[in-house]
């Protein structure tokens, strides 16, 4: 009686509004985007443009920058937030945990542009690091506008959600397993590597996928920093807005979208916990 039911008219009625919205405003525009180079430039030249863009050294460099940056940010974020989440779950009284979690997840609602601005306040020309380094007798150090600025900014906006996930996952760990391991004579390191880390594996993969996908598509932070290191979302924006190069912008968007989607797909296969991936 409680088996999943087949598609009935009532279900079709319930699904229609969302299905219509997503087909009309996502699926059809996405196909339009794929075909746009062909319809704007003609079939032969459109296909040639596809080949040109994918083989272009400057675009590939931007893609490589974005990919490497996102990968580094993902690794750092996962290690940091696993530590913080585990700390909040295990070594914190309920009261301290409450305000710590509130402060650490405060930036969840901040748009990327605010975080870019924060990095300027820290490492920009009038930044606090520049003032401090000058006070201590050195030169004014600025790091906001290069790789370091983007790296720290991306970590800043990735941390809150990952910390919240790891705190919840650490709460859900079975403590009896750790106690059993200790009783059987395992060292603290053995417990960490053989019990705790495997227990957090699913959360780590799911969080990493989300952090990576967000970092690949992040636009606001790089936009505010107007960074010297070019990332692909900025390239796409420039092609579209400054050069009105719609076909190229469309192809680059498709490239970025396809890579991000593939990474999420692989992560989902690895966890087979579908709901966890948000």
């Amino acid at each position, binding site marked *: 009686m409680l088996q999943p039911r087949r598609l009935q008219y009532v279900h079709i009625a319930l699904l229609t509004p969302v299905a219509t*919205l997503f087909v009309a405003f996502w699926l059809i*525009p996405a196909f339009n985007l794929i075909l746009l180079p062909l319809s704007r430039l003609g079939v032969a030249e459109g296909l040639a443009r596809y080949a040109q863009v994918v083989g272009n050294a400057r675009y590939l460099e931007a893609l490589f920058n974005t990919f490497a940056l996102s990968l580094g940010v993902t690794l750092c974020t996962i290690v940091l937030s696993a530590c913080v989440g585990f700390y909040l779950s295990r070594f914190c009284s309920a009261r301290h945990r409450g305000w710590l979690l509130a*402060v650490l997840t405060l930036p969840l609602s901040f*748009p990327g542009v605010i975080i870019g601005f*924060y990095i300027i306040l820290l490492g920009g020309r009038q930044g606090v690091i520049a003032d401090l380094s000058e006070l201590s007798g050195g030169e004014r150090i600025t790091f906001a506008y290069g790789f370091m600025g983007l790296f720290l900014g991306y970590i*800043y906006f990735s941390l809150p959600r990952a910390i919240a996930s790891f705190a919840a996952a650490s709460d859900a760990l079975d403590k009896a397993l750790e106690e059993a391991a200790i009783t059987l004579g395992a060292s603290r390191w053995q417990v960490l590597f053989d019990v705790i880390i495997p227990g957090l594996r699913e959360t780590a993969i799911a969080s990493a996928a989300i952090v990576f996908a967000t970092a690949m598509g992040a636009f606001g932070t790089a936009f505010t920093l107007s960074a010297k290191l070019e990332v692909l979302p900025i390239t*796409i924006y420039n092609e579209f807005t400054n050069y009105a190069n719609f076909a190229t912008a469309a192809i680059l968007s498709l490239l970025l979208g396809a890579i991000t*989607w593939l990474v999420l797909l692989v992560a989902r296969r690895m966890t087979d916990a579908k709901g966890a991936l948000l």
Partner: protein
Amino acid sequence: MSRGQGNARRAPVALRLCVAATLFFVITPIILSILAGFVVNYPTGLKSGLTTRWIQEVWAVYGDTLARSIVLAFACLVIAILIGTPCAYALSQIRSRWARALEELLMMPVAVPGLATALALILMYGHFKGFRSSTAFILVGHVLFTLPFLVRTLIPAFANAELRALDEAARTLGANFAQRFLGVLVPAVLPALAAGALMVFTLSIGEFNLTWMLHTPLTRTLPVGLADSYASMRLEIGSAYTVIFIAVVVPTLWALQAGADALQRYFTKNR
């Protein structure tokens, strides 16, 4: 479950250092931006004195963005709840191939960078001038991006076996679908609905990647105005604007969160 008793053991030094560094990294810029929003001259620092002049200037230039963002976020929330709740229920009930395909489609605006979605929307619908220049154009983007989060939170809640039995019981007693949906199913998933709704509001109010492409000079939102002030105004004004963002958005979110928590407590108590 492990809360409270944790204090018996002290965390290893390396772990405590790591937490302290993270906390310092998150808090420092927030404090700096609040200070910078109220000092007369940022490079001189507190010595130059405090003022509310920057806040007033932001209010004069960007006041409209505040109201627009809040209205937009609430409109997005209402639409997401109205169309997302029935959709989540249907998806939790059926295993058809079409339903799985729709579930995949729902994830696309989250999986694919916002810039790509915005570009696709503009190139497809940009020539409908009335639509392109209205806030509705931004609203469409926000609903696409936030709806999946609500639906994903609701599906497991609707799939709950206990709830299914309850629904069957109501059906055998002769309740029609509308009665069961509004009288049994929706009240049972209210805590999940509240959590999902909070997510929708949070994401909509801070959305920039899509909105920067979709906005026009007459439909600027808070994040768009912020980006504009960072690019074209002095540091103090950018900071004052950031202070206003935090002063408006954070208490709103805390109030919504408190509401969601109260709902959660009420329902776990009456289970």
